[in-house]
């Protein structure tokens, strides 16, 4: 029911509408959502502004001082006047700074891999759901086969193949991109499945038939009409996938097949740190691990909340 006062109102801005919407309302009334989004946002901002926040650039060999190695947290180095908040690692790198820079790589890989998985998954899902028939059968069987392997195995396989075909001298530079490709390709299936299911529902709705009647081709119908209507479940999966992609990246890097030591991600830092855990230098492992935990957990909780908020039936 619309009242006359509403009808004369000006169109509201996107932000105001989002804030006023049911999802906005649910956000304002969910402490979990507010806390986890604050944590995630702080970490992301810290990663983006790492050069401003870090005390040194851990990638720059000139700024390193081996004499500062193994300084415990909240103390001054033994042989220099430098003071370290979270201590240093074996090469004298400031752990706090390496975490900021490492998070940059983790987040970049995470976002890019999810974006890649999303693009592939959404496209294949739309095609599969809208056209059906052979296209559907082929795409979905590939998806089924891929699902029978743990995604980390698929990622390792892609990573291994890519490493084999790249020349040695470019390997370290390309490592990040290979990581993105590996995680992205192991991730598209869930997007494709969800989009396909939603497309099957949407394509029979009358607004799609109205567009077909108008003479609209398959592409405008798929991307202008159907895609916006299947985006809510995709957003939920994307958020949860982001957390999974960050963890996948950390896992691969931990296993030594991911980001190289010259460009350490959180996973690489954890791998380096675990060697020192039992010799007493616990801070090299614990601080990157806690950061990873906070990042993955906050993004994951945000995804859970988003799923509930977008699907009122679950409440």
């Amino acid at each position, binding site marked *: *029911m*619309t009242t006359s006062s*509403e*009808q*004369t109102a*000006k*169109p509201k801005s996107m932000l105001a509408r989002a804030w006023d919407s049911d999802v906005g*309302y649910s956000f304002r009334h969910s402490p979990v959502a507010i806390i986890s989004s604050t944590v995630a946002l702080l970490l992301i901002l810290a990663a983006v502004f790492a050069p401003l926040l870090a005390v040194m650039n851990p990638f720059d060999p000139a700024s390193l001082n081996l004499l500062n190695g193994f300084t415990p947290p909240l103390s001054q180095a033994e042989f220099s006047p430098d003071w370290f908040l979270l201590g240093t690692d074996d090469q004298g790198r400031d752990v706090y700074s390496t975490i900021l820079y490492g998070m940059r790589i983790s987040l970049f890989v995470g976002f890019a891999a999810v974006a890649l998985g999303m693009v592939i998954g959404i496209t294949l899902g739309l095609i599969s759901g809208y056209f059906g028939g052979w296209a559907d059968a082929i795409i979905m069987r590939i998806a089924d086969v891929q699902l029978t392997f743990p995604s980390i195995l698929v990622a390792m396989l892609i990573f291994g193949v890519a490493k084999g075909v790249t020349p040695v001298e470019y390997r370290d530079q390309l490592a990040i991109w290979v990581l993105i490709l590996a995680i992205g390709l192991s991730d598209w299936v869930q997007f494709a499945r969800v989009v396909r299911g939603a497309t099957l529902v949407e394509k029979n*709705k*009358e*607004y799609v*038939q*109205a*567009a*077909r*009647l*108008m*003479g*609209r081709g398959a592409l*405008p119908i798929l991307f*202008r*009409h159907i895609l*916006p*209507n299947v985006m809510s479940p995709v957003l939920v999966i994307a958020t949860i996938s982001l957390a999974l992609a960050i963890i996948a990246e950390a896992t691969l890097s931990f296993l030594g097949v991911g980001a190289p030591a010259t460009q350490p991600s959180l996973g690489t830092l954890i791998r380096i740190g675990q060697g020192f855990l039992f010799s007493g230098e616990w801070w090299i492992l614990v601080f990157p691990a806690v950061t990873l935990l906070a990042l993955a957990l906050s993004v994951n909780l945000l995804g859970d909340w988003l799923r509930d908020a977008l699907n009122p039936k679950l409440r």
Partner: protein
Amino acid sequence: MSLLEIKDLTVEFPTRRQRFVAVASADLVVEPGEIHGLVGESGAGKSTIGAAIMGLLEAPGRITEGEIALNGSAISGLDQDAMRALRGNRISMIFQDPLTSLNPLFTVRQQLVETILTHLDVSGEEADQRARDLLDRVGIPDPDTRLDQYPHQFSGGMRQRVVIALALCSEPEVIIADEPTTALDVAVQAQILDLIRELAEERQVGVILITHDMGVIADTTDRVTVMYQGEVVETGPTDQVIGDPQHLYSQSLIAAVPRPNEPRHRFPQISYGGRQTRFAIEDIARNWPRQDADPDTPLIKVQNLSKRFLEKRSLIPGKSTYFTAVDDVSFDIFPGEVFGIVGESGSGKSTIARLISGLHRVDGGVVHFRGQEVSDLSNKAVQAAFRQEIQMIFQDPFSSLNPRMRVDQIIAEPIHHHRLLSGSAVKTRVAELLEQVGMGAEAGFKYPHEFSGGQRQRICIARALATQPQFLICDEPTSALDVSIQAQILNILKDLQEHLGLTLLFISHDLPVVRQMCSRVAVMKNGQMVELQATEDLFARPKTEYTRELLSLMPRLDALQSSGS
């Protein structure tokens, strides 16, 4: 003391913006053996009353005032346990959709016997015998065989009979029937209503019949209560309320019901609640490209049209089974006429619309538009021109507009697609179209969900008019709308035909509506066209037995007729 007495009932749903009052101080009395009709448009609060009686209000709804009394003792304050003992025992319910109110995994016998054993103190054998008797009583032939079948083996009407048998298991005092026939065809609807009436009388059960259909009320009920936006506006014996409605809203509601027995030029509209919207047909007509078509040359020529759908796929060629939806149908539609297709659900009438419009590929036969074959979808040039000339109004205004697009984008889409206008001219045109259908240009900035069903259907009409088509397909355009809105939309469609010379293909299952809209009517049954006549001839002298049967099933609105508003 009455059987069921509702006094001053108020039901509220607190939401985040305000408290929504679904029912406001409603009074209702039901006597044994009486069928009490509860009528009103969607959102009037009639189902909420039913749910309140059953104690099944959905959270966060609650009764804030008033009392419900069964045989003199209050039941509205009872706790869940006490309500559960009451529900299905002394009060039972018949739901709208017989498909979902039976458990598909149990046989009818299991469901009936279980219910009987839960509520009555009888032995297993007695329960079995009772189940059999009940099926027999609700008119299911061969109950012994039917008892061991599963719900999916019953047709819609038979299934609703089983649901009624289930409701009778516990020998209830009150039955609440919430739109019990809305999901059924007219023929079946009449039988089910007869059954409910017989049973009410025979067992002295009080029935509350919730419906939006004035025809059902006139046919079936003894007393009727009219509701509007949560309030009871009028209550009384059915003949009196329908024949001589006192309240302005009841008058408008009854006036808007299409009469089956006389054609009327326009649907009467008595506005209530000040929601009268203008439809500026003169403005549209001024700039409409008139095409002087020869009235004797068919605009649409349908020849031997057939369509079958795959029922069961088989890998062996020729072994797949098909369902024939349209079987060898031929007819012509002449310029400027309203051509009607009627039939029960599944008769293939919507499929014909889809075949003509090219949403389905034809399996046999051809469709000609102005002498050109348009059923060949691969001829791109013909298709492109045809797409501009034809538009469709769909049944469900809630799914026919893309929820993620703004209204102005929705209406602009066909203009952009056919490159009719460009730049700021599109904006002007969209605003103009919105004004013309009575929505106001500012409606363009909003999204479809902000509008009611009738307003959405107007937006659909604006979109259909954007390309200035010559041929409009209306597939059950009003069956999802309330009667007063239906009258508005039908008047708009009539205007389009009269003032713009549009040709309409009008598909409906509602015979009274068809009688007033169409010049010629085709009757469909099981994919075949059984009869095609000028409307008045068809209603006066039906040629086939099937048509005669359909006509006899129209709700008898004798009482309505005499009101003569």
